[in-house]
């Protein structure tokens, strides 16, 4: 296309400059006007080869400017391109009525605009007005009287059609992208569903494992059918989570001896309960070489370990630094049933409580460290002789240290009071009262630690 002279009517300075650059780069000369009125002055001053006009402009809009050009006999054959958003079909009728030769929709591709210009210049506009007829066109309930030549109608139709085709191509691309995105979304959704199913499966498996572990831990608790003449037993065990660090047991060691303990592994949950189960295996009352309590003596008989020996052995096996800081406290006692003599050891455990028949309650404190702190340490052993009707209680720190909402501890005195008052009830009733007193203390949050209580009443010798 040869260099031509172009008048551009555009009120946006930025868009005007951009369009000017496109046209100047293509070798044309450009005259800019910021509205239709100014543009009309420019075209009358010197007849341009092409006019490009925006529609929305102050003072004189694109349609009025176009009409003015096309009704001027000197100028009517100058091709005029309207820049439109073509957001409304009525725009086409308006452009046709105004006599526009071509439409280019905004935003436009510079190459496309130049091509349209070339097409218009290659097809000179008819100079006669003979082919013109006035037509009534009704669109959107409005009737337009359109006066246009065949050439102009054809040009405008072609440009509108080309526009539509271009827009359609763009739409096809967008559509394809959308469809790809949709497929991608579907795949992601499927992966998410699969992941969710997996999590739910793993969750179920973990719940099953925890339940199984809790059952293993339950197996450390006393057999329901432990019955010893002259001895009454009662216990309660309430883990604060499904798995506990606490456990307790009472069992016959031989014809005359009863063993009993409460163990409290630090922390809660899986690590503590694994340690509890491991410790429990060593504290088995079944005669075996692996039991720390009763071993074959080599002559067909059995040998009972003293409580201090048991604590010493456990301390050798469970040093805290090999169990990532886990340790445990324990109170282990051996009762000689005929004499009522109790030998016991405390490894950093809460004191043994003794309650006489008249209700006098005593806490027996001891000086041993928890198991796991000091290697090779010896544990002192204490002994006491029960009077007929005496009760003893072993319990975890979850009893005296139970905290209420104000973070106050239940305390030793409250515990002793419940145990003293319990002399009016049976042993089981007293143990139950102590548990319920702790639970009431902890309303509304409930105990934050495992609670273990083991009670024994000695009825006297044979």
């Amino acid at each position, binding site marked *: 296309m040869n260099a031509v002279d172009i008048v551009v009517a555009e009120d946006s300075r930025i868009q005007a400059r951009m369009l000017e650059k496109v046209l100047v780069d293509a070798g044309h000369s450009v005259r800019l006007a910021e509205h239709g009125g100014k543009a009309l002055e420019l075209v009358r001053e010197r007849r341009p080869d092409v006019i490009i006009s925006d529609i929305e402009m102050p003072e004189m809009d694109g349609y009025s400017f176009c009409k003015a050009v096309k009704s001027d006999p000197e100028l009517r054959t100058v091709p005029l391109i309207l820049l439109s958003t073509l957001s409304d079909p009525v725009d086409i009728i308006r452009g046709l009525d105004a006599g526009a030769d071509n439409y280019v929709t905004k935003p436009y591709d510079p190459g496309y605009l130049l091509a349209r210009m070339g097409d218009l210049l290659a097809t000179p506009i008819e100079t006669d007005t003979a082919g013109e007829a006035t037509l009534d066109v009704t669109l959107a309930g409005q009737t337009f009287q359109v006066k246009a030549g065949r050439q102009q109608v054809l040009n405008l139709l072609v440009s509108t059609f080309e526009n539509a085709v271009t827009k359609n191509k763009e739409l096809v691309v967008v559509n394809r992208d959308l469809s790809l995105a949709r497929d991608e979304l579907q795949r992601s959704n499927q992966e998410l569903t699969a992941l969710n199913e997996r999590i739910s499966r793993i969750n179920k498996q973990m719940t099953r494992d925890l339940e199984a572990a809790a059952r293993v831990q339950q197996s450390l608790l006393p057999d329901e059918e432990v019955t010893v003449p002259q001895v009454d037993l009662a216990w309660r065990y309430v883990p604060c989570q499904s798995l506990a660090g606490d456990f307790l047991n009472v069992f016959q060691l031989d014809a005359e001896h009863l063993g009993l303990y409460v163990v409290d592994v*630090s*922390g809660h*949950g899986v690590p503590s309960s694994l340690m509890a189960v491991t410790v429990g295996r060593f504290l088995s009352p079944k005669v075996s070489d692996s039991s720390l309590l009763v071993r074959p003596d080599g002559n067909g008989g059995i040998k009972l370990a003293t409580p201090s020996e048991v604590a010493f052995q456990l301390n050798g096996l469970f*040093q*805290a*630094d090999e169990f*990532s*800081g*886990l*340790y445990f*406290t324990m109170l282990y006692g051996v009762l000689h049933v005929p004499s009522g003599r109790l030998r016991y050891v405390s490894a*950093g455990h*809460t004191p043994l409580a003794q309650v006489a028949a008249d209700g006098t309650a005593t806490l027996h404190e*001891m*000086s*041993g*460290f*928890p198991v*796991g*702190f*000091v*290697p090779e340490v010896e544990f002192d052993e204490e002994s006491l002789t029960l009077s007929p009707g005496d009760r003893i209680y072993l319990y975890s*720190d979850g009893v005296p*240290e139970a905290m209420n909402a104000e*973070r106050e501890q239940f305390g030793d005195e409250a515990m002793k009071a419940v145990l003293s008052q319990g002399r009016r009830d049976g042993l089981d009733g007293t143990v139950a009262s102590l548990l319920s007193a702790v639970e009431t203390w902890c309303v509304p949050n409930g105990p934050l630690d495992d609670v273990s209580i083991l009670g024994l009443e000695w009825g006297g010798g044979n």
Partner: protein
Amino acid sequence: MSTFRKLNVSRVKDVDVVIFKDSKILDEELLDELRTELSAVVGNRPAPDVLLDFSNVEFMSSAMLGLLGVVHRKMKKADGRLKMCSIRPEIFTVFKLTNLDKLFSIYGDAGDAMKAFE
């Protein structure tokens, strides 16, 4: 000295003074972090002198005692000296119940503890 998330550590007269930043030492996650950071402090040099300052600590679970036991063992193996100070009465009960007040060297405040290192 490197920085820690849960401890303020400073060297005073050749003693590594370790101040716990948290007021509540209760959950397992914090214990794990403290385990890592305390190991780093203790394993820092041969024959270390370490003072653990509890002045910020208002609540402490008994599980923390196990960690202190581990630190105690490590210090002993390294021929170091471990002291503790500024333990509130409520927390001191936890030490007393388990007789660990007799195992650890515990002082009323940092001044007393520092004198004991001299």
